[in-house]
């Protein structure tokens, strides 16, 4: 085993802002339309067409900046990033270069080991998305669809502050949750609304940064983790064989689980950025910033603090439950009128476990929050025991239905009739005279054996508290 390498990771995340119209023209940003149906002279780069900035894109960028405690630049400048590719009809992308709208900020990320780590964010800037190229269908030609061209993007650049794939995933998840909380993006990773590039390099601890490779277009948390893990091994092999890592762009091949060199261009890209003469500098007035600040929703960290305060939850529970806006909303419905800690245990245990096993996210959860709340209410009013509730939950998850209907249809109502329980107890004591005698002679731990027998006889439906109390009474009586 070689001396340890330290991995250094920085992420660039492209977030599509969920405005109705494009950033510089009034075309729709809706996904999935006929090719080129959402285009106009501006986003097709017709000569003489001029861009006009969408104020919703500006407001959403401000909201993000406020949420990460960033400095907002009251004056920012749009620049042309020049390169030629057919899905970029102008021959340049309108972006921000020297002065972005959002300056330095940070995100505090909870790692799986329970430690919180601060990841610094260098900047976030507004730019336009490119169109799409389709390479398969036409022999010797590529088809170009410019519906996406001009969709507003916020590119969020982190400092190289992450030291493992796990940290990178935790940061990306937190960022994803944040844009969903803020409702500045739909965050749909399959449709490309939230895409990530990872800069990965290795170094010996406390030495200067090594040469990095940039892995492009990672569109899932799992791919990010796999791509980084692969890249670490690849660079480690090169360095330990005495070689040098080449600075280059690489693509993650999900089918083979490896990264591959994408551009072997020796000459570095020369984007020749310059201020776009079609756009004036963007001035942010205090009034606008204040308006956005006032409209900000409750953010993950504030919601976490409230969960601790209002529901009396442990820090860990509150952090897990507020990690996604949808999950936090779900929990708050379940906890309404119920034991808050019990609700947290159910959501974090049974529910997240079942979702994880089924490969589902909370927003496609088959059990409605109201139904889970009802299940807890039926435990609380002693209609069912906790053990039976777990069975019902599995039925709800797999087959749907309502809690009360399942209880009735399957006869799962808890037995709370004392005489019925006593009858069962007496029968079991009669069948096990030796154990009963031993118990009375002082073998206390046989009590558990009797509890088990009674629960078995009642198919788990006897009220456990009553079983305990009545069993003790009957065992002693005889």
């Amino acid at each position, binding site marked *: 085993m070689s001396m340890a390498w330290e991995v250094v990771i920085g992420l660039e995340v492209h977030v599509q802002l969920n405005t109705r119209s494009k950033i510089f023209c009034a075309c729709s940003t809706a996904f999935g339309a006929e090719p080129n149906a959402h285009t106009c002279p501006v986003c*097709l780069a017709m000569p003489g067409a001029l861009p006009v900035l969408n104020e919703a894109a500006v407001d959403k960028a401000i909201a993000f900046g406020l949420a990460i405690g960033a400095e907002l630049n009251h004056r920012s400048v749009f620049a042309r990033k020049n390169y030629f590719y057919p899905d970029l009809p102008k021959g340049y992308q309108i972006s921000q270069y020297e002065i972005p709208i959002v300056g330095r900020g940070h995100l505090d990320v909870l790692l799986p080991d329970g430690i919180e780590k601060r990841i610094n964010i260098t900047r976030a800037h507004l730019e336009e998305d490119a169109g799409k190229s389709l390479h398969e269908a036409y022999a010797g030609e590529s088809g170009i669809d410019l519906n996406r061209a001009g969709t507003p993007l916020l590119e969020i650049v982190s400092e190289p502050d992450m030291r493992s794939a796990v940290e990178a995933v935790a940061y990306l998840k937190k960022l994803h949750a944040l844009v969903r909380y803020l409702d500045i993006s739909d965050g749909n990773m399959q449709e490309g609304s939230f895409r990530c590039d990872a800069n990965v390099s290795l170094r010996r601890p406390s030495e200067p940064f090594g040469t990095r490779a940039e892995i492009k277009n990672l569109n899932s948390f799992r791919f990010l983790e796999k791509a980084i893990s692969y890249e670490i091994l690849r660079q480690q092999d090169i360095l330990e064989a005495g070689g040098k890592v080449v600075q280059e762009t690489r693509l993650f091949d999900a089918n083979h689980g490896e990264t591959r060199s994408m551009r072997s261009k020796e000459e570095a890209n020369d984007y020749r950025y310059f201020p776009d003469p079609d756009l004036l500098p963007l001035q942010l007035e205090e009034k606008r910033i204040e308006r956005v600040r006032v409209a900000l929703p409750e953010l993950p960290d504030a919601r976490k603090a409230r969960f601790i305060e209002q529901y009396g939850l442990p820090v860990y529970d509150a952090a897990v439950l507020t990690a996604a806006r949808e999950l936090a909303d779900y929990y708050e419905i379940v906890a309404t009128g119920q034991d808050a800690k019990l609700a947290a245990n159910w959501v974090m245990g049974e529910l997240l476990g079942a979702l994880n096993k089924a490969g589902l996210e909370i927003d496609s959860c088959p059990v409605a929050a109201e139904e889970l709340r009802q299940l807890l209410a039926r435990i609380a009013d002693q209609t069912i025991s906790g053990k039976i509730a777990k069975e019902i939950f599995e039925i709800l998850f797999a087959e749907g239905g309502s809690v009360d209907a399942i209880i009735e249809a399957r006869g799962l109502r808890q037995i709370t009739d004392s005489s019925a329980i006593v009858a069962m107890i007496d029968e079991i004591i009669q069948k096990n005279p030796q154990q009963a005698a031993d118990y009375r002679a002082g073998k206390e731990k046989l009590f558990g054996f009797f509890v088990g027998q009674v629960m078995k006889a009642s198919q788990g439906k006897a009220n456990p508290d009553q079983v305990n109390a009545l069993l003790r009474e009957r065992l002693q009586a005889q």
Partner: protein
Amino acid sequence: MVKRIAQLSRIALPDNELPQMARQLERIFSLVAEMQSVPTEGVEPMAHPLDLRQPLRPDELRQECLSREDLMASAPRAQDGLFLVPKVIE
């Protein structure tokens, strides 16, 4: 240098035009060099010659627009609503 700039700009430049282009570019570079000698310390870089602020547009969809067919009419090649271009793939 001239070849590289032509390549970056995607301009086909025949070899016999290179000397003339080089002379013209040199004149531009010398003008730039002259401007670079102007003391600019403490002067904020100008992003735009007009001293105006960027107007913003409300986030609304345009009601009517040219049809896709009209918009694509001048494309050299198009099919199935797509612009067709010489194959680009890594």
